[in-house]
């Protein structure tokens, strides 16, 4: 397992093999051997290519203590969002001193972003996704590119969504996440703290169990999920930075604008924006690039390291970008009028024939009566301008015929009594 430090640069074709290697590593350590896991990562798997982002929250001390034992010079980044409790900032200093960490860097948001998107510091209130985006995601992004591996403090027990969490994970952008505390419970954390005499976050004692930015953290009741205190009432569970590093991370948008992107059963903030005149192919990010623009500057787009989307208009042939589809985190298919059904064919070609598996969104004239059809043709996201349609989606009230005669799409489980529907596509697909 020593040759694995080339991981970050390995070609895509070896994804599977590498994933298997990671799986194997996951079996090598005792569940509670956090130190062993971290040492393996820091000294063999990713020597010199590993870092940690710490929130310096209520239970950050344990992980930082482990880091200090393995390598006190391991880079530790702290997201200085500008929204922390003063107690947290004091705690950073306490831990640095006491654990002997010698490489702690504070990451600050870009003042230009703050001036533009959050001039009065209230963005967290109206659009926490965007607030996190400019205060966490953006500052972190240039840093994540520099390291092949990241240590996290995530634990299985913390929320329901984290029920399964291995020690080693491969992210979709070819980085490795190390989760030494994956199997630690609340009690384990406390026991560890006690055993090693680690200082407590000053706010822990007054009822804060999971501590992030001040505005977004509240006291957790006895027996409640510790992270329930974060973003309370805002219907937001995860901060963007815990997603895959190229995952769905919110982008600032006008605070008052209504959310129009419907995805995974809810309206969410849209990290993407439309292509604009004068955008630079080498540096745009979170933008749906029109297909002809993409073809015109294909090399520059392919060299661009940022997440990108593709915009397919009615007359465009998706076959022309067949080989580049995996480059796009999102593909938007435009329906110029709901009566223009070309997008349905495009959706099926992308999802069924060309094997595109990412976000496939319908944009343009998207109305409730067509959404069920769009879904069947592979669309999994909808940008909805029509208010009655948004209302219907919010209420889960789509006029839909739920049984089908004809096999369409990759996931339709043929049911009912149409035998030819039950035949699987041949293996040559």
């Amino acid at each position: 397992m020593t040759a694995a430090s080339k991981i970050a640069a390995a070609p895509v074709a070896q994804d599977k093999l590498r994933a298997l290697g990671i799986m194997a590593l996951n079996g090598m350590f005792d569940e509670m051997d956090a130190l062993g896991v971290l040492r393996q990562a820091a000294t063999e798997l990713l020597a010199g290519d590993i870092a940690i982002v710490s929130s310096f929250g209520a239970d950050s001390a344990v992980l930082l203590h482990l880091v200090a034992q393995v390598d006190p010079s391991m880079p530790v980044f702290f997201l200085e969002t500008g929204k922390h409790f003063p107690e947290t900032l004091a705690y950073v200093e306490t831990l640095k001193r006491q654990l002997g960490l010698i490489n702690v860097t504070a990451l600050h948001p870009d003042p230009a972003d703050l001036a533009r998107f959050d001039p009065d510091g209230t963005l967290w209130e109206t659009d926490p996704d965007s607030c996190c985006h400019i205060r966490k995601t953006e500052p972190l992004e240039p840093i994540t590119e520099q390291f092949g591996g990241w240590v996290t403090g995530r634990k299985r027990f913390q929320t329901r969504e984290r029920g399964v969490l291995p020690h080693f994970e491969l992210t979709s952008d070819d980085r490795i996440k190390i989760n030494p505390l994956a199997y630690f419970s609340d009690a384990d954390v406390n026991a560890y703290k006690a055993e090693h005499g680690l200082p407590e976050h000053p706010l822990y004692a007054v009822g804060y169990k999971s501590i992030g930015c001040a505005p977004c953290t509240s006291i957790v009741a006895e027996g409640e999920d510790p992270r329930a205190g974060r973003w309370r009432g805002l219907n937001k569970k995860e901060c963007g930075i815990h997603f895959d590093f190229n995952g769905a991370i919110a982008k600032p948008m006008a605070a008052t604008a209504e959310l129009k992107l419907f995805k995974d059963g809810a309206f969410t903030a849209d990290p993407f924006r439309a292509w604009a005149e004068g955008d630079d192919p080498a540096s745009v990010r979170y933008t749906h690039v029109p297909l002809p623009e993409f073809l015109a500057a294909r090399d520059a787009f392919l060299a661009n390291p940022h997440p990108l989307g593709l915009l397919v208009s009615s007359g465009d042939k998706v076959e022309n970008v067949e080989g580049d589809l995996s480059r796009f985190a999102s593909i938007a298919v435009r329906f110029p009028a709901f009566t223009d059904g070309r997008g349905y064919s495009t959706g099926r070609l992308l999802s069924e024939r060309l094997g595109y598996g990412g976000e496939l969104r319908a944009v343009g004239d998207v109305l409730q009566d067509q959404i069920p059809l769009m879904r069947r043709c592979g669309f999994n996201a909808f940008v909805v301008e029509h208010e009655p349609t948004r209302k219907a989606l919010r209420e889960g009230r789509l006029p839909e015929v739920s049984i089908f005669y004809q096999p369409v799409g990759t996931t339709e489980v043929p049911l009912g009594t149409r035998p030819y529907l039950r035949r699987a596509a041949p293996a040559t697909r």
Partner: protein
Amino acid sequence: MYRYDEFDAAFVRERTAQFSDQVNRRLTGELNEDQFRPLRLMNGLYLQLHAYMLRVAVPYGTLSGRQMRKLAHIARTYDRGYGHFTTRQNIQFNWPRLKDVPEILAELASVEMHAIQTSGNCIRNVTTDQFAGAAADEIIDPRPVAEIIRQWSSLHPEFSYLPRKFKIAITGAPADRAAIRFHDIGLQAATNAAGDVGWEVWVGGGLGRTPMIGKMINGFVPNEHLLAYLESILRVYNRYGRRDNKYKARIKILVHEEGLETIKAQVEAEFSEVRGGVLTLPQEELDRIGSYFAPPSFEDLPATPIDIARETILDPAYGRWLDNNIFSHYRPGYASVTISLKPIGGAPGDATDAQMEAVADLAERYSFDELRVSHEQNLVLPHVRVADLRAVYDGLVEAGLAEGNAGLITDMIACPGLDFCALANARSIPIAQAISHKFAAPERQAEIGDLKIKISGCINACGHHHVGHIGILGVEKKGTELYQITLGGDGTEHASVGKILGPGFVADAVPDAIERLVDVYLGRRETPDEPFIATVRRLGDAPFKEALYGTT
């Protein structure tokens, strides 16, 4: 005939609920007319000159007695006591109220009927030979495949918003009674070298303002791959069909502008991708659907000749009916009966609720409970014992449906025209009625023989005037209704499009003009057996033109 299973029933129920919701949203104003239009059109609901019109699908024109009774009930309860059978083998109700429509649909669903895709830019009801499963000249009964196409095309998510409407016709016989060469896709049964039955695929035919005869795009597609082949054509059409101009949006224009070879290459490329995939139709499925269309329990009867001459002496009207309205059946001792919906002076295709009930009775008693609607706007009892013909005839006399004019000059097709249709330039039903009166005398009709007159109230050609031996087209010139006359159209396997003879006539002059054409034919035919269309082909337009416009 096909019977719904639970799946079909649930499908129609859900679709009815879905449409009811859409109607309610329209009634409450949540949907405006622009947003409602495409939705109602997907369900056969048009806004006509005076009222909504609801078009109910009669899949491939096949009905049971129970279904016909339900149509009668709807005509009586929600309409003005009649329905109109169309050239696409459907039935239209001209006066339903919007708020009643969900209820009508629920009534229809109770007898396995619906209005799904009887309009809108989607794949319409599949039409076929009205004698399917009965005709003596048939290679194969096309209805099982028609049913499978119906299922495949019902609420197809990819093809619900095509550039334009899309019509498929299928026939299992070499004599084309379904006008497959004038459909977006026409399917004609064919046999390959190995003796397997498959389908000749014709594409790009159509009437309307640019009539075109379909072109053969594939000479043999086996059953197994038919759906994949259809999906390939539809996908090419959906992606590349013109959407900039609704008059150029039919597939016939795409085929015409791009050329058959280009379209064929695109279709074949698409086909090579989908062929053998999920749309592959297993023989077991075809057999399963086919079993619904198994022949009824025919008796073993001797061939029973009908002595028309004798019957004509005894009862001329009955003799005429036998001569014209009987079609030969593949089983000895049986015949198919055409019930003419073209009484002299009546509106072509109309039937009252009482007539529908009477026809349902006859079907139940004498035709194994089966009925057909023909694209020539008549009804058919497909399987009648020759020995029962007189009883059927007597029943029809009582119902006022015994006109023995099938295929004759008074068996006209006419679109609804200005009496109902918002798009019309001119009346068509009154023209049909006037011509019908002119040629009312049975002896005269018999002398003329086979002659198809087809009348459209405007260039949209719903009355199929292009394929009438004589076609009549209503146009509007400076505020007056005029009628152009075309000659030489043919919707069968000898497909041709009629040619305009010259300037239009005012309504009153039309019957005389037709008479002059007929006189040319009677005077110039080589033998009494040479039909009108053959004489026209032999002589060309000139003598007919001269008869209408003189020599200049």
